[in-house]
C-alpha cells in the first residue's frame, strides 16, 4: 500500500483526525527548523516560529484545499512568519550575536572534518568559514536569500519555490543564478582553487 501523501493527511486533519498533525510535525520539523534557523539565526526563535507554523496549519485546517503541494503551503507560512519576525526588528540583535560566538558554542556546525579531534586552530578556522558563509547569505537581497535557502538547503523544486516567492519558474532560475553569482564573489576566499580546478575539468 502506497504511503499516504501529505495532502491526504491534511484532508484527514480537516475531517477532525487531530492526531494526523503529529505525523506531519514529525516529518517536517527538521527541514522547517533548519530553514527558519537560517533565516533568523537563532535556534530558540526558529523553534518558536516552527511551533507557530504548525499551529497555523492546525488553525487553517478547515479551509484547506489541496491546490498545491503541502510543503509549498508550509514553507509559504514559514517564510511569511520569518520575514515578519525579521522586519519587526526583534531578532536583529539575535541574528548578529552568534557570529561572535567562539567555535563550538553555536548550535550550528560545519560538516564534520575527517579528523575526529580537531585542534583549536581548526575550530577557529571552521568558525571563521561558517561566519563568512552565513554573512554572505545574510547579505543577499531578501528574495535571493529566500531562493537560495529554499533551493540549496530545502531542495524544493523550482515550481514550489516560484510559487512561494510569487514569480515564474524562469524568473526564479535567473534569480538563483544572480544569487549564486553574488555569493561567488563574496565567498571567493573560501573557493580557493575549486573554481579554477573545476574550470580546467
Amino acid at each position, binding site marked *: 500500500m502506497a504511503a499516504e501523501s501529505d495532502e491526504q493527511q491534511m484532508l484527514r486533519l480537516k475531517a477532525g483526525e487531530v492526531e494526523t498533525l503529529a505525523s506531519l510535525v514529525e516529518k517536517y520539523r527538521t527541514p522547517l527548523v533548519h530553514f527558519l534557523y537560517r533565516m533568523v539565526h537563532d535556534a530558540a526563535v526558529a523553534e518558536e516560529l516552527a511551533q507557530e507554523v504548525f499551529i497555523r496549519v492546525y488553525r487553517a485546517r478547515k479551509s484547506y484545499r489541496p491546490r498545491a503541494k503541502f510543503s509549498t503551503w508550509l514553507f509559504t507560512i514559514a517564510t511569511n512568519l520569518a520575514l515578519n519576525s525579521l522586519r519587526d526588528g526583534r531578532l536583529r540583535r539575535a541574528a548578529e550575536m552568534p557570529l561572535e560566538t567562539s567555535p563550538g558554542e553555536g548550535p*550550528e556546525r560545519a560538516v564534520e572534518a575527517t579528523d575526529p579531534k580537531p585542534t583549536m586552530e581548526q575550530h577557529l578556522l571552521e568558525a571563521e568559514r561558517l561566519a563568512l*558563509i552565513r554573512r554572505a547569505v545574510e547579505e543577499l537581497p531578501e528574495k535571493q536569500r529566500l531562493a537560495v535557502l529554499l533551493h540549496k538547503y530545502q531542495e524544493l523544486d523550482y515550481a514550489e519555490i516560484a510559487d512561494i516567492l510569487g514569480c515564474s519558474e524562469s524568473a526564479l532560475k535567473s534569480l538563483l*543564478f544572480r544569487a549564486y553569482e553574488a*555569493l561567488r564573489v563574496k565567498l571567493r576566499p*573560501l573557493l580557493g582553487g575549486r*573554481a579554477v580546478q573545476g*574550470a580546467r575539468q
Partner: protein
Amino acid sequence: MSGNEHLREEQVVPYLDKRLGAAERAAIDGHLQSCAECRTRVAGLRGVLDVLGEWRAADPSPGLVAAVRTRVEAEARAKAWPWRWRWVYAGVVVAAAVILLVVGVWSPTPSPPTGAGTEFTQSSEPTGVSDDLATVEPVILEDYDLLRDFDILFEVPATTGTTPEKRGT
C-alpha cells in the same frame, strides 16, 4: 542552443542541478568544451554550491512535537469549553428563574386596605420589609426634619447662657 551562444542565466542552475533534458544537457556540455568563459562560470557556481553545503543548521529540540501537541490540545480545549458547559449554563439560568418564581409567589406582600372588613393591622413584631418601611420611614422623616431645623441648636445654650457665636465675643 547553438555552439557559439553563451549559457543563458536560467540554464546554469538547472544544469548544475542536473534537471535539464538530455538534449539540452548535451548541447551545454558541447558548448562548455569550447567556451572557457562559460566553463569558468559554471565551475565557480559549482564551487559556491559546495561551500554552502558546509553550513549545517541547528536541529530541532526533541520537545518540539510535544510542544505543538500541547498547544493544539490547549486550543481545542479553549474552543470546546463553552460548548461542553452549555448544560451547566442552562441549568443555572433555569434554577435562578425557578427561585425567583418561588420567592415571588410565597413572599408575603401587604394587600392595600381596600374597604370594610379589610383592616391593615400592624403587629409589634416586624413582619416583612414592607411593614418595616411603613413604621420606620416616617420616623426617619421626622428626624430629618428635626435636624434640618438648626435653630434648635441655638436654643440649647439658653441654659448655659452662651451661644457659640457669643463665646467668641
